């Protein structure tokens, strides 16, 4: 394999498949495609398609004239920060491992995308797997590693299948394996499947899992860049981070910095979901405002409902509200606002979503996913969950709100790893922005969003019912009657208060008492 062969494959493939040069369809004017540039354009199972889109030209360029320091410098200069959530500068991370003189080092691609409500990495893995391989090969060269692992969560079997195909094809072209591009550089990549544990997205837990152990985290330091997999220096990069690398090498750090902000250069992929009209993946330059994402690209909440909040950072993050819509979205702003970028999931909520209930949902998740090693996380999250349960059942008191806050801070301060340190964030953030809603639950025993069923006695259909019959159709106990286009009535004796009718009504004709 050499540059001439790459050029030949590129030209031939483009001639045979002119559609590969077509632009993305239905892109909003504010979107840019860097990470997702090949997604939905190329056939992910065809390595020639990837090469036709300048794939593997970056690693070729590196192996025919760049030193390890050169590569690290370009990545450092680009200002690329880890897209998994933490936002640590990638170049600096690589430099730690590069400087370590150990003769065995590892690269791990963290594809354990467990944040519920985030599906960016899945798309890249399934639609452009070679871009991840190339990022890993480059990272391997830069730090001096010869082995890479991709840790894929078990829920993504298609991603694992396509990655394996990509690895096999790259081996065949000698883009992976020994003496890559005829140089002395060797690099191999193996896939490891997760087995359903969110905590394995945390670096030290992920390493424990690859080593065949329970996925429990360890104290840091030592950081994995110094002492990681099998005790060797290990760099763990997220999927989206790696997908940026080859283009930074080819087009340079200045090009990369032409997107985004000074401290958060480049683009970010977000997964828009929840109560928003345009759901799906978007890629936008960092620094775009939250309002542009929600209202311009996402086209608002729809269904005549009112925007209430957007959850970012999943179970580790928090919520942003109406008053944050003109804030620029980047790593540091979101942290300053009490949330975090996380991996890029954005769940939009409307006025029918209860913030206390959402905090409870996330705590339920953290309780379940805590590895159980350290007490603050194992026990603390359970107590936090119980307090929230008490409040949503209408049994909470004002004193519980104080307790909630104090305990949240204690768990944050004293937990061993990122899971526990961030698990209380949804509580702290909703307490800050929606304190009134908590108060309504504990003092008036009312859920303003009509969502907490422990606080709802009955559902009533009002006169503005248009007789669309949807609630009657959805009712699991058939206790709603009425003619089409006529007022409907709920048989209160038969009603099981499931809330199905309330959620299905598009005309605000159902109220709660």
């Amino acid at each position, binding site marked *: 394999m050499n540059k001439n062969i790459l050029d030949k494959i590129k030209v031939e493939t483009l001639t045979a498949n002119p559609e590969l040069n077509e632009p993305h369809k239905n892109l909003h004017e504010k979107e840019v495609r860097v990470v997702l540039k090949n997604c939905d354009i190329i056939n992910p199972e065809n390595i020639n398609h990837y090469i036709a889109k300048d794939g593997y030209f970056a690693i070729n360029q590196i192996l025919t004239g760049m030193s390890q320091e050169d590569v690290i410098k370009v990545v450092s200069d680009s200002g690329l920060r880890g897209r998994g959530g933490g936002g640590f500068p990638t170049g600096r991370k690589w430099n730690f491992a590069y400087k370590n003189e150990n003769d065995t080092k590892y690269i791990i691609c963290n594809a354990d*995308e*467990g*944040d*519920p*409500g*985030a*599906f960016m990495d*899945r798309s890249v893995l399934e639609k452009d797997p070679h871009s991840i391989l190339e990022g890993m090969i480059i990272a391997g060269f830069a730090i001096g590693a010869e082995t890479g692992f991709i840790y894929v969560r*078990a*829920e*993504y079997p298609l991603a694992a299948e396509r990655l394996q195909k990509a690895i096999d094809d790259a081996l065949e072209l000698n883009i992976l394996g020994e003496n890559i591009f005829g140089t002395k550089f060797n690099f191999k990549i193996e896939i*490891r*499947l*997760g*087995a*359903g*544990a*969110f905590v394995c997205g945390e670096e030290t837990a992920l390493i424990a*899992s*690859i*080593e*065949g*152990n*329970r*996925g*429990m985290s360890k104290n840091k330091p030592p950081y994995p860049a110094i002492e990681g997999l*099998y005790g060797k220096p290990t760099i763990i990069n997220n999927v989206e981070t790696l997908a940026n690398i080859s283009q930074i090498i080819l087009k340079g750090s200045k090009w990369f910095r032409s997107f985004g902000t000074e401290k958060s250069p480049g683009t970010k992929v977000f*997964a*828009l*979901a*929840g*109560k928003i009209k345009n*759901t*799906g*993946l978007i890629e936008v330059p960092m620094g775009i405002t939250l309002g542009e994402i929600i209202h311009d690209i996402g086209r608002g909440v729809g269904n005549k409902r009112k925007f209430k909040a957007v*959850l970012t950072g*999943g179970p580790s993050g928090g919520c942003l509200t109406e008053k944050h819509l003109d804030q620029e979205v980047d790593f540091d702003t979101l942290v300053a606002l009490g949330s975090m970028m996380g991996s890029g*999931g954005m*769940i939009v*909520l409307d006025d029918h*979503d209860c913030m206390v209930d*959402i905090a409870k*949902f*996330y705590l339920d998740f953290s309780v379940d996913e805590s*590895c159980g090693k350290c007490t603050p996380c194992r026990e603390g999250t359970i107590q936090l969950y119980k307090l929230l349960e008490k409040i949503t059942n209408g049994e909470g008191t004002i004193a519980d709100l104080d307790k909630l806050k104090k305990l949240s801070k204690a768990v944050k301060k004293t937990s061993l790893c990122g899971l526990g340190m961030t698990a209380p964030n949804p509580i702290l953030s909703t307490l800050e922005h929606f304190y009134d809603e908590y108060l309504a639950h504990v003092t008036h025993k009312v859920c303003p969003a009509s969502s907490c069923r422990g606080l709802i006695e009955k559902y009533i259909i009002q006169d503005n019912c248009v007789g669309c019959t949807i609630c009657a*159709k*959805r009712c*699991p106990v058939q206790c709603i009657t009425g003619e089409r286009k006529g007022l409907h009535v709920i048989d209160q004796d038969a009603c099981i208060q*499931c*809330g*199905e009718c309330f*959620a*299905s009504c598009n005309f605000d004709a159902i109220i709660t008492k």
Partner: protein
Amino acid sequence: MSIYVLEEQLNEFKIEVIDKYRDTKSPLMQILQESQKRYGCVPVEVQEFISKEMNITTAKINGVVSFYSMFSLKPSGRHILGVCTGTACYVKGASRLVERVEALLDTEYGSTTEDGCFTLAHTRCVGDCAQAPVIMVNDEFNGKVTSDDIPKIIARHRGKNCKK
């Protein structure tokens, strides 16, 4: 104790799985995943067999099996039905779907129906949040599910290899 994996299957497991991984670095997860894939579970007899063959204590193996939610000790029902409980699905009413499924199948989440036809599996975000709420039946994806779709989904699968 019920036996889920037969003696001769264990021999086959040794040749096709354990021997393949024996000399690789930390292969325990892959071996357990193979058992889960082949037998739908990693029962005690398989754990003990791996322990003997690989010279790893059963305590360690059991520790790993019990840690990860994808490993089970008992085989599941013929169809695995899961309502996705990711955040997007949750805000789109997944918990009401769970209740509906539980009521229709007369069983609780995490357990198997009496006829062995369905296991209601706890399901983490399946990564298709734009289609929320989602119900998975084995590998079949059902997006934007409403509660009145559930009887149809169940009926469709009840017919397949399942007679009450």
